[in-house]
């Protein structure tokens, strides 16, 4: 680590293909603390970054079950608490309870999936160091950024910059923390 404190290097590419190629080369070089910033989801990055996180899906699944249990439990519980005999119809009418149980299954599944996504992404947050990079606003337009973070063991202000320029990046920028 050199004197200037740094958060990460940002290297700008013009197409998803260039970015994917750059990630491959960076990984081959031994860099591990990588991230990418893209205007839309780019296919194939997940495998390259070894992204195997399926917690969002599991959270949605858990939420759906929770909703189902709440839905059925609420309807059985209230009928147990105050049995209301209407024409001798069954008190615990599961077929009649199905609609609300189903709605709550969906409701909690969707809420867990959405809030889980935000939580795992650590959003909302007001600031992130990368935002101060001068060309970063293009990441939501038409540029694809490779990011090598300063906590990577191989990170070196000089060598990493050199490496990224050799990859053919349109620009290379050091983002302060």
């Amino acid at each position, binding site marked *: 680590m050199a004197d200037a404190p740094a958060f990460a290097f940002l290297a700008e590419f013009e197409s*998803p293909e260039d970015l994917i190629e750059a990630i491959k080369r960076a990984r081959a070089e031994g860099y591990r603390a990588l991230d990418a910033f893209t205007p*839309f*989801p780019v296919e194939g990055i997940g495998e390259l*970054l070894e992204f195997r996180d399926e917690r969002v899906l599991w959270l949605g699944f858990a939420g759906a079950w929770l909703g189902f249990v709440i839905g059925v439990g609420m309807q059985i519980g209230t009928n147990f608490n105050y049995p209301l005999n209407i024409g001798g119809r069954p008190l615990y009418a599961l077929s009649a309870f199905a609609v*609300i149980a*189903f709605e*709550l299954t969906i409701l909690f599944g*969707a809420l867990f999936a959405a809030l889980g996504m935000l939580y795992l992404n650590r959003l909302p947050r007001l600031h992130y160091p990368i935002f101060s990079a001068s060309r970063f*606003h293009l*990441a939501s337009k038409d540029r694809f950024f490779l990011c090598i973070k300063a906590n990577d063991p191989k990170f070196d202000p000089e060598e990493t910059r050199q490496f990224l320029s050799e990859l053919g990046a349109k620009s290379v920028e050091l983002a302060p923390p």
Partner: protein
Amino acid sequence: MSVAESEPILPLDQSLGDVTEQLARIPLHFPTRRRWLIALGLSSLLLALFVVSVVVLFARGVGIWGINIPVNWAFAIHNYVWWLGIGHAGTLISAMLLIMGREWRNSLNRFAETMTLFAVLCAGIYPLLHLGRPWYVYWMFPYPATMSVWPQFRSPLEWDIWAVLTYLTVSVVFWYVGLIPDVAAARDRTRRRGWQVFFGVLSLGWRGSAVHWLRWQQSYRLIAALAVPLVVSVHSEVSLLFAAGQISGWHSTIFPPYFVLGAAFSGFAVVSMIAIAICALFRLQNLVTDDHLDILGKVLLATGLMTAYGYLAEVFDALYSGESHELQTLEDRFFGAYAWTYWGAVLFNFMPLQLLWWRRVRRSPWALFLIGLSVAIGMWLERYMILVTSLYRDFLVSSWGAYTPTFWDWSTYFGTIGLFMVPFLLFIRLFPVIAIAETKEVLQREQTEEAHG
């Protein structure tokens, strides 16, 4: 839908940057200020009419409407079903076509979902008004009351509030999750402080990290997969408000699919109208192309024919049952005092629709718009017909009656159009009206495919 698979749905001579600038520019440098203000002014008048109608309603009670015994469900429930049905197409376009990987949805999903939100709002407010004493709506929820009674969970009326509130919540969540990256894109395009704060807060600090995108996709697709059966369940449940009772003309097993398809039909009609209007207003012909209109026309035709099947099945159902009151209701629909609603529904729903067999009509914005309008009117008449023709001649001749909507019925109904239009117009003023990230994703994929043959 061979168009979506074989040929690119978007013109390829535009860059990702162009699309971003074009769409983010709409809220940031709003182009058609005058026309928008005129539309907002007219819609605000309707909204004011709605407010007045509701104040009068709450002060004087539901007696100001034309409802009576036996026709105690009329405009309120009729328009509730109509608005909710319109809302469903937004979810279907957005969620079902996302799961099926239909790329043409990406130009339509944002405003279709927005339409859903405000249509559900208009729908949801009707049962509340119909309560007469809306401050008692909390009785619908299981709260620890001093009398220790609970809501009647075996009643379709109770199912209804859970279904509609779930639908509204899930629609908001799905819409907002999809909106986050686009709000971030708009935030990055502006230099004005006010916009930066507005979009900055709403984008939740989205930065387009690849890992975030992966989780976002998981979440977005999962919610979509949950939203599709939700639509089916919600409108099936709405149909059970009718079918679970023993009223002739309602008590039929065809009702759930008949209602769901009719809902999709009316919704696609309104989506087509909104697509054409937005496209003309903001000159977005490069993103909402003739191919999109073509597909919308085909979907409208298909859902329309399925709804027509529902009409036939209903008639068959009544004839096959041979039940005398069922047959009488059928006769009332065909020849009774309200036969104009039945034949009006048939005429407006299915006659202009047949023009959509021709490709040239599907690709003509004006023709498609007018057909969509005709379907919206036809479906409105259909809901009127289902409500009133089944109720006005009950089992007992002594309880027969008639229904005529009053001024306040109409004013509340036209008022809800303002309740729909005002927030919708504010949305197109403040947010990107077409999904930026998803449109670019399609454009990029099609350009790559083109380049690699």
